[in-house]
């Protein structure tokens, strides 16, 4: 602790003196962090869309065409009592026709040309938030279609499941690509800082001769790697933020990473730099 000021000054001086090698190391971290950041942003945004859709999830239950109002009432009571259903709204055949016309006004004549309203009565079931995973929705729907007088039940099952799968794939691929690029960044930081360390091997030798411990020699280099990692991470975050803002000017509704993500990413970038640096300096300590 008593050496902390010395280590910080040395690390900053070394970064300042590093020139093109330091710039290359920062760039390597930036590149890796940016790719990781793009995947993380895609994941977070897909996840957000998924959550929003899931919270608005409902199941349309179509009743058999010949069902009368009294029967519909009985079915509705039954559906409303099913586990996981929070509300069952009745949509009469007339209301369905009105909704149809509202949705497709140009087809109004088509409906009027028919002698009888072809649309069945239905219930719109709203689900409790705790019952909204694709598996649970499927289980509820299974019970619904088994009810006598129910013709069919429709909901955005496949689409929702696909969206969740896409978010998972993006997350996994992102983590894998980020991991590989992170390892590559560590190697690049290792070799660039390795060159910087090589240039200062005399300093290391002198320090060891006058009684410096390995830890004392290593600390400023680790500090240097940490600064390089953090700078690379910051540049990547700035670029990512710029990219998100740019998309927004084109009215693409994209969210920037939440604080926990970018803070974690920044910490990882710093760690990658520090590890790369520690590994590089290790070779020169055997004096």
């Amino acid at each position, binding site marked *: 602790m008593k050496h902390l000021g010395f280590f910080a000054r040395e690390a900053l001086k070394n970064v300042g003196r590093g020139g093109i090698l330091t710039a290359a190391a920062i760039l390597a971290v930036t590149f890796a962090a940016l790719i990781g950041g793009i995947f993380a942003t895609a994941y977070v945004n897909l996840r957000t869309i998924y959550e929003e859709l899931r919270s608005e999830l409902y199941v349309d239950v179509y009743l058999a065409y010949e069902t009368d109002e009294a029967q519909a009432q009985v079915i509705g009571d039954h559906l409303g009592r099913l586990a996981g259903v929070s509300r069952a709204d009745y949509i009469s055949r007339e209301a369905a026709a009105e909704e149809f016309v509202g949705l497709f006004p140009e087809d109004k004549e088509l409906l009027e040309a028919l002698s009888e309203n072809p649309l069945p009565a239905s219930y719109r079931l709203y689900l409790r938030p705790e019952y909204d995973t694709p598996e649970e929705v499927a289980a509820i729907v299974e019970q619904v279609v088994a009810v006598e007088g129910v013709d069919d039940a429709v909901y955005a099952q496949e689409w929702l499941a696909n969206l969740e799968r896409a978010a998972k794939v993006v997350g996994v691929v992102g983590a894998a690509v980020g991991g590989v690029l992170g390892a590559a960044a560590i190697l690049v930081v290792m070799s660039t800082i390795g060159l910087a360390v090589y240039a200062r091997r005399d300093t290391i030798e002198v*320090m060891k001769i006058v*009684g410096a411990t390995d830890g004392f020699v290593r600390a400023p280099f680790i500090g240097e790697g940490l600064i390089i990692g953090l700078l690379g991470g910051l540049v990547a975050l700035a670029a990512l933020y710029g990219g998100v803002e740019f998309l927004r000017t084109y009215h693409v509704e994209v969210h920037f990473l939440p604080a926990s993500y970018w803070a974690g990413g920044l910490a990882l970038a710093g760690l990658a730099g520090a590890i790369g640096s520690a590994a590089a300096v290790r070779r020169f300590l055997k004096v």
Partner: protein
Amino acid sequence: MIKMRGVTKIYDNGVVALHDVSVDVAKGELAFLTGPSGAGKSTLLKLITAEEPPTEGLVEIAGHDVGALRRREVPYLRRRIGVVFQDFRLLNERTVLENVMLPLTILGLAPAEQRRRALQVLTVVGLAQRKDARPMELSGGEQQRVAIARAIALDPAILLADEPTGNLDPDITWHIMKLFRLINARGTAVVIATHNYDVVKKMDARVIKIIRGELPEEAVA
């Protein structure tokens, strides 16, 4: 202060640098280690600073068996031994004062104390007025005096010098030797490795002769 018994050093490439060397250097003694180039002088000094381990035998510094030291204990041994090299080994990106302060920084002294003690030893070597210069701005003799100041900054029990005047002209050499005598007079054991016999003759001090890795004239109890 320094005790060596039956020390042999064979490098990985098979070169026998020292063979069955036994020697003592007492506390506060001044000794010259002489011999032609390649005789094993530098190796002997490296064994004392634990830069190299002995292949065989005992190296003891102030009662501590150097060969038995763990890697992490070596720095603490080195803080008791000052070393001066032929090529000075100063850090050119630092000022004279910062170079001398380095061992004091490593020791963890407060910055004001580091500065005070560094200036004190720079005064001993006569270079306090050049404290803000960079080593490259100094003459060879001045650079060696800075290196000596750095070596004595921690007030070591032993000062080792490996061909300290090898790059210096005769006048400067004599000045440096007087400095070593002054340091020795303050109670530090000083061992100077050199092949400059003229200097050795003038200095009137103990001479340890090393020839092809052996000390033929040394007799120890």
